[in-house]
């Protein structure tokens, strides 16, 4: 009961804020809605027994990436909004109608596939790692053993991205 209530509340807020993100007139407002959206998603993760992921979600997404967005929005302090000739709300509305149709289709697909094959149970993957709540240590263990190479690749990716971002954003000397 309480679980369902929590889920439906969170779901409604997440979706609502998602709509606000894509339909907000001001980019700064979009960012704000996005932050709140991510925080709510983090709460959703907590209900799914994924505390570590939730904290990472807050730390990296809300505290890092979105700050970056806000930063860029403020740097690109536009005199005029890029959408001065079109009404973003109207566009978003028409888009949402289209999206609703597609979503309905997906619902049909998913529910029909769930009906057709029995709902998957137990571990599907060969490298499944059963876990309990409070799984930070386990997650670290899995991350540094089974997924070591992807983990290192991700770190390289981040390094490359960092260098790339600096190269792109840096004003060249003499400019």
């Amino acid at each position, binding site marked *: 009961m309480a679980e369902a209530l929590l889920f439906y509340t969170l779901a409604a807020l997440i979706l609502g804020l998602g709509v606000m993100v894509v339909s907000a007139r001001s980019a700064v407002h979009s960012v704000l809605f996005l932050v709140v959206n991510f925080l709510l*998603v983090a709460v959703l993760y907590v209900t799914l027994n994924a505390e570590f992921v939730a904290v*990472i979600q807050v730390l990296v997404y809300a505290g890092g990436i979105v700050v970056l967005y806000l930063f860029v929005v403020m740097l690109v302090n536009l005199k005029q909004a890029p959408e001065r000739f079109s009404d973003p709300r109207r566009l978003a509305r028409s888009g949402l109608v289209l999206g609703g149709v597609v979503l309905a289709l997906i619902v049909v697909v998913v529910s029909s596939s769930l009906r057709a094959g029995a709902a998957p149970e137990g571990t599907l993957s060969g*490298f499944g790692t059963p876990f309990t709540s409070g*799984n930070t240590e386990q997650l670290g263990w899995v991350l540094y053993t089974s997924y070591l190479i992807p983990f290192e690749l991700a770190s390289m990716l981040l390094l490359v991205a960092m260098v790339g971002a600096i190269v792109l954003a840096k004003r060249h000397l003499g400019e």
Partner: protein
Amino acid sequence: MLEITPLHYSLLSAALFMIGVIGVLVRRNVIIIFMSIELILNAVNINLVALSDQLQDLAGQVFVVFVIAVAAAEAAVGLGIIIAFYRNKETVNIDEIQIMRW
């Protein structure tokens, strides 16, 4: 209806995904398009975490960590591109970013 199954999470995920897609398709501000992409990634993450819980398999959470790392990289490079572009063209309107057309 009152019992929350992975299907519920999948539908939430799908809905958030569609919202993100709509955002990508209809908005003209590149920054907001990027934010919509972040929404899409979050939709995926919800699915992964929910199924991780359902299947009692940590792989899902591991993937979320990777997705977040990739998202961070994507945001850094993408926003760097936006800054560079803005410096040259004084705009972030995606309709004006079209010099690659025929």
